[in-house]
């Protein structure tokens, strides 16, 4: 059984991200890293592939900038990496993305489980995950905090899933798509040898025609990016002789501001 996971390169979490005069999103000379949520899905793919004695492949959909994330994944220990790209693919449209992703999973072949990180920080979305499952026609298990059992022979999976109201333990049939939460594992750091090997790796690119996919018109349109409105915050430092005095003054201020 083969396991597939998806990743992408996103600006370093400490980077200052801004929209420039041309309306493009920029992050200065900050590096890109793997989408922070994907650290957990990459680790889980390595662990689960080992458990079932299969291979783990990582896929990114997008331009060359995503090779960085794929190389990091290979350095962590993923068995193979593929990038999917063709001009005209609108990665901000989740149905476009999911249609390409599902076709790529089918091309890998013999896939029993697809693992995603909880969401992508660049687009700030997770709908592409659920739509990939739907395009594949597979069971979707989201917000997985723990894989309790993955049985390749009987083709079943048992997971603990987080909902607003509590935790569900669910069983489902494979093949399935899951999205995993932070805390499901401790992601490993790439080894020195891993990094050296990954730096030399040639990453194949699959085009939409390689995947035999014709995309429908995008169902959503990106109108544009903008910077956050400047928040004019005047900070008032509350003084007082004792913590009690400061606290009482603060309570008065909060009552005036009508937030209590």
């Amino acid at each position, binding site marked *: 059984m083969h396991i597939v996971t998806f990743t992408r390169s996103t*600006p370093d*979490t*400490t980077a*200052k*991200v*801004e929209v420039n005069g041309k309306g493009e*999103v920029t992050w200065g000379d900050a590096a890109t890293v793997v989408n*922070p949520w994907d650290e957990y899905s990459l680790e889980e793919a390595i662990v689960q592939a080992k458990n079932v004695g299969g291979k783990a492949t990582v896929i990114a959909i997008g331009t060359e900038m995503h090779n960085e994330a794929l190389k990091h994944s290979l350095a962590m220990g993923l068995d193979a990496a593929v990038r999917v790209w063709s001009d005209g693919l609108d990665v*901000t449209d989740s*149905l476009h993305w999911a249609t390409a992703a599902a076709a790529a999973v089918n091309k890998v072949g013999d896939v029993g489980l697809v693992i995603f990180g909880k969401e992508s*920080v*660049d*687009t*700030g979305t*997770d*709908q592409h995950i*659920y*739509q990939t499952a*739907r*395009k594949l026609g597979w*069971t979707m*298990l989201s*917000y997985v905090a723990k894989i309790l059992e993955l049985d390749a022979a009987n083709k079943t999976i*048992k997971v603990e899933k*987080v*909902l*607003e*109201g509590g935790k*569900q*333990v*669910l069983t*489902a049939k494979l093949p399935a798509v899951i999205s995993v939460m*932070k*805390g499901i594992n401790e992601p490993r750091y790439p080894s020195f040898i891993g990094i050296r090997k990954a730096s030399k790796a040639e990453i194949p690119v699959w085009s939409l025609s390689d995947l035999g996919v014709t995309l*429908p018109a*995008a*169902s*959503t*349109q990106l*109108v*544009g*990016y903008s*910077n*956050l409105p400047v*928040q004019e*915050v*005047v*900070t*008032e*430092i*509350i003084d007082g002789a004792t*913590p*009690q005095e*400061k*606290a*009482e003054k603060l*309570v008065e201020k909060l009552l005036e*501001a009508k*937030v*209590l």
Partner: protein
Amino acid sequence: MSRVIVFVENFDGHVNPTSWEALGLGSTLAQQWGVPVTAVVFGKNATALAEDAAQYGADHVVVCEDETLATYRLEPYAALLAKLVSEHAPKLVLGVGTNIGRELFATAAADVGGGIITEASEVSVDGDTLTATRPAFSGKVLMKMSVSAPNAFLLIRARAFKPNSKDASRKAEVTTVSPVMAEADISTKVESFTPETSKVNLSDAGIIVSAGRGIANNPATPPAGVADATIWKAQHGFETVVQPLADVLGAAVGASRAAVDAGYISYDHQVGQTGKSVNPDLYIAAGISGAIQHQAGMRNSKVIVAINKDGDAPIFKMARYGIVGDLYEVLPALTEALKKKLGK
């Protein structure tokens, strides 16, 4: 007839109150379009909840209380929602971006080929085109997306839109429908369910009290035999100074990534880039320096209060009010002052 469909989220017979915010926006947009609002409620107690939906603005309510929908599962819920959407070709399907809402809407949208926009905090309508503003790059910038009717799917952020005030005289026509999937065709089985223990949910909290690394500077002495004194001090601090303040305020307890990663509190309390994004009226940050990743998750709070020993901490730059001091002195004093003032 064209309409706006609003999904009212119901878990085990309890409605998620942010659903009424979606119904509020739904009735505003429906008015602009001159179409009615249909609320859909699935699961336990759905028929009883239909009355509430009417009072919050629904003109019609579609309910399904079938046993297969008793506890939330994606497959049967999505199949039924997609079927209702195909039958009615609504201008818009509207809900709140909870864990359930996100996967349900994306799945149903894929089934009917509709476009979906999530996390909307502002919405405008021009003819059949709807444009929404939403966060991107961890909330460091905004993006505008547009989607066209029919079958447009939209999820709003909790607390971004106001519900209608409840009108006890409003009634709606209720229709009961049958599920699409039989139990035998549903791959997912629920083995068990453990309800959430924390009292207030971060995503829809009006007030949040958060603590960071500073919570480890607890003057209390750990009992003998404690494996890790720092972790004990931090956890003890959450229990003895953060939680009591949260209790007085009816607030949810949050934490910085530093506090979560150090093992001081569980991950479901984390606010920030790899935690929850929140927008309360009041956010009290105690012992949190205010790293850019934390700011990404809480900068939409209406009023921010910073409490930190270090007067140069970046958190003060975004705070409306600041107290420079030890959180172990300030938080208990604040709890007492509030008890006095609020008469608790």
